[in-house]
């Protein structure tokens, strides 16, 4: 391997690492607040890419119908729960958040899509359409079992991923898509050509991470989220509502997943089922970082990106085998360095 090739592989690796980093940060954020390991984040990223591709073609993306279907289901569940608990006066508010807003967004996109608005508008539309998906899924799937053990939540998340893949095929079809790059500008660093897209990816990853950092450190909502992640009961006693904190975490992580989907769409061909590998590689990154640290997750994700890039040079067919095999020694190393806390999960 020459230096030139190494430089090209490194640039590639950092670009995909930055994409994994966004998903990984979302994963960590959501895990710490809700204890759910949201395996389907990768699916959301893929769905965003597919949505953007449909909008580029002036077609109505499948996400529109998906959001409408989920909104109706989520609102029905919320309505039944409210009426049963005797809180029928909360219905208008629930209708606003679970029904009116998501469906309004979906219908707006549907109306605007045939006109093929300019690229920035299309990006915003794709993002706006994907953001409600995870909070709605949270209401439908996880809220009824919010206090279940972490492992049950994990199993549900994995099952949810399979449901989403099936829905993805239904709403988007089997064709792969690749969108236009955000910019055609490029430059040269150490002999390797760095495309504008790569720069966008890295800048977006850094900017969003910085934004999250500021949000967590300096705003009351950020502090409430951190409080919920370190102790649910304690936070509840202080007036933080875990369900609301959870919804905020879902929205934030969805934005991260959505942005990563927008950024990856021009780089890789995305299919309805491409999300699993994106999500799992982000997971590997998050685990390298210890599942509780945002910078750790970001660094871990970049390591995964680099590893994947160099592994694909060594053997392109075995790169996924290599990336997932590496998780085992990493987990072992983590279990050796982390402080052992006896888990009392007697049921």
């Amino acid at each position, binding site marked *: 391997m020459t230096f030139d090739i190494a430089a090209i592989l490194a640039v590639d690796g950092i670009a995909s690492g930055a994409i994994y980093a966004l998903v990984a940060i979302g994963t960590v954020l959501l895990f710490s607040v809700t204890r759910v390991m949201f395996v389907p984040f990768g699916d959301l990223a893929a769905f965003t890419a597919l949505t953007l591709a449909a909008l580029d073609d002036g077609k109505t993306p499948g996400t529109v119908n998906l959001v409408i279907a989920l909104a109706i289901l989520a609102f029905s569940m919320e309505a039944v729960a409210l009426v049963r608990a005797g809180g029928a006066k909360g219905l208008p508010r629930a209708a606003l958040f679970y029904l009116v807003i998501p469906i309004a967004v979906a219908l707006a996109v549907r109306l605007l899509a045939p006109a093929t608005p300019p690229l920035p508008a299309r990006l915003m539309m794709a993002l706006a359409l994907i953001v409600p998906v995870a909070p709605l899924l949270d209401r439908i799937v996880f809220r*009824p079992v919010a206090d279940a053990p972490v492992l049950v939540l994990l199993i*549900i998340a994995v*099952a949810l991923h399979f449901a989403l893949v099936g829905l993805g095929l239904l709403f988007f079809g089997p064709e792969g898509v690749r969108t236009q790059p955000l910019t055609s500008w490029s430059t040269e660093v150490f002999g390797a050509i760095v495309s504008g897209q790569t720069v966008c990816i890295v800048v977006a990853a850094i900017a969003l991470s910085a934004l999250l950092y500021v949000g967590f450190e300096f705003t009351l909502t950020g502090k409430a989220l951190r409080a919920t992640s370190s102790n649910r009961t304690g936070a509840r006693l202080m007036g933080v509502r875990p369900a609301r904190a959870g919804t905020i975490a879902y929205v934030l992580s969805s934005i991260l997943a959505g942005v990563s989907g927008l950024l990856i769409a021009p780089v890789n061909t995305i299919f309805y089922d491409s999300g699993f590998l994106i999500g799992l590689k982000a997971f590997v990154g998050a*685990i390298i970082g210890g599942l509780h640290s945002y910078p750790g997750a970001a660094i871990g994700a970049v390591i995964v990106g680099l590893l994947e890039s160099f592994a694909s040079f060594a053997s392109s067919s075995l790169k996924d085998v290599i990336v997932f095999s590496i998780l085992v020694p990493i987990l*072992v190393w983590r279990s050796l360095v982390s402080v052992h806390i*006896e888990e009392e*999960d*007697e049921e």
Partner: protein
Amino acid sequence: MSRRATLIVSFLAVVALACAPLLFSSFTISLFNYIGIYALVAIGLALLTGVAGIVSFGQAAFVGVAAYATAWLSALNGYSPWLGLLLAIILTCAVAAALGAATLRLEGHFLSLSTLAWGLAIGFLFGNVEGLGNFSGISNIPPIRIGGHALMKSEEIYYLVLLMVVLSLVAMYNLLDSRWGRALRALRGGNVLVESLGVNAFQTKLAAFVIAAFLAALSGWLYAHMSRFVSPASFDAAMGIEYLMMAMVGGQGSLIGGVVGASIITFLKNAIQDYLPLISPNAAGQLEVVAFAAIFIVFLQYARRGVVPFIAARLPNARPTAPAPAAALDLRAQPATGAPLLKVDQAMRRFGGLIAVNAVSFDVRAGEIVGLIGPNGAGKSTMFNLLTGALQLDGGEIEFSGLPISRAPQRAIARAGIARTFQHVKLRPRMSVLDNVLLGAHGRLQSGIVRGMLRLERSEEARARAEAMRQLERTGLAEHAFDVAGSLPLGKQRLVEIARALAADPTLLVLDEPAAGLRRNEKMELATLLRELRADRLTVLLVEHDMEFVMSLVDRIVVMDFGSKISEGLPAEVRADPRVQEAYLGGVA
């Protein structure tokens, strides 16, 4: 149901299943075959996930390793499928042992995620190896032959599948009922307790992991020679979660639940495939996985405990039979009264900058009751954990019966004859009181996994049960032997812990705040029990807060404050010691 009723029902079920080929079409029988093949994996998962609490998404990969092993040997290299079985078992168990050795020290969700990761890695591997046919797999796998006759038809291989499922179930039920199975059942809820009873938690987990992989290997071998074709798609991540689904739908921790779950899922899948096209002719294929996942999610939301526990709760309970009298287990040679037993020399333990135990030295002699007291934060519990090996010393030495135990793991200390109780009672609340006490005798029994599976350890088991019953009588709990441990009030639960410690036939009993949370009359009963134990030449070291309880009971007292020993002597001496008064009352009035 009583044991006899269970046996009769099981026998009738097996006879009915053996007659099935006479009644059903070939298609239905082949469906049964698939159920049996999946059930083998699900039984292993019931043991691994339901009993031991290790959630594995990776079983499909083990099935795949076995299926590919036998396919490679028989279809590509022309050897007998029976040789394939041997290779499948050896290879699968070796892979499981290696993966387990690397990952089973991980906790909870980390462990599960690692199973997802290596499951995926192995799945990808099948599709990317030239010699294994890449993504198109291996076809033309020969059928299994018995005495020159090839098992080609589904009715023929049916009996082999049935035999394997029945034998596996019997072996696994026997195993769960044995000494090893008891240790496995106790794993849920943390390692500290099981290690303090002399169980090697890691080895127990590893064995369970390999057993589950062994069953997966049987399944993979049958699958390869029944479908006569293997490809990576049959062993991917989706299949891994489907196996987990089978085990969970059947019932967490229920072995027969594995069979029930495999049946339900297979029939359900079949029904979805049949009926979805009627509802949605264009999108049936896509909706299948959605419907399936949705049903599983709803199941996990509302009926997580599974089908078999739901039914079992509605069957009449068997009246448990008291253990029959049996020969006593061998006893340890107890040291002569007054001989030095425990010697703590300059013990040190730091937590970061805090010195929790600072150069503490004291002795305990055989046959006495020693109290370790001190105000909150004095370091008593840390000292206690150092003695039992739950924490490691930073300096100094601890000797027990002349053996250095400073560096020994908890289970070695337990086996050397120190039995402990916990400040926060650690029982297995869903196991019976008798089973909890039997756990204490783990270190005194020898029979292992194979003897347990074959039920060759019944005489030893009978002796252990009689011993456990004796300890329950000694502590006044005989009437509660078959109650669920979690249903007892706290005072009784503390006594169960003492009975469990006694079942280990200890030389030294160390009790961590045994009187905490007890009512006055319960404390008096406890004091009476401890005096009786001393009369039986047992040595007791207790950490306690309750002064009245300690002063009236113990022979000698060691007082700690801020990590150091500040006084030692007879109760009256200690009470008169100004340093002790200062520590407790903040200065002499």
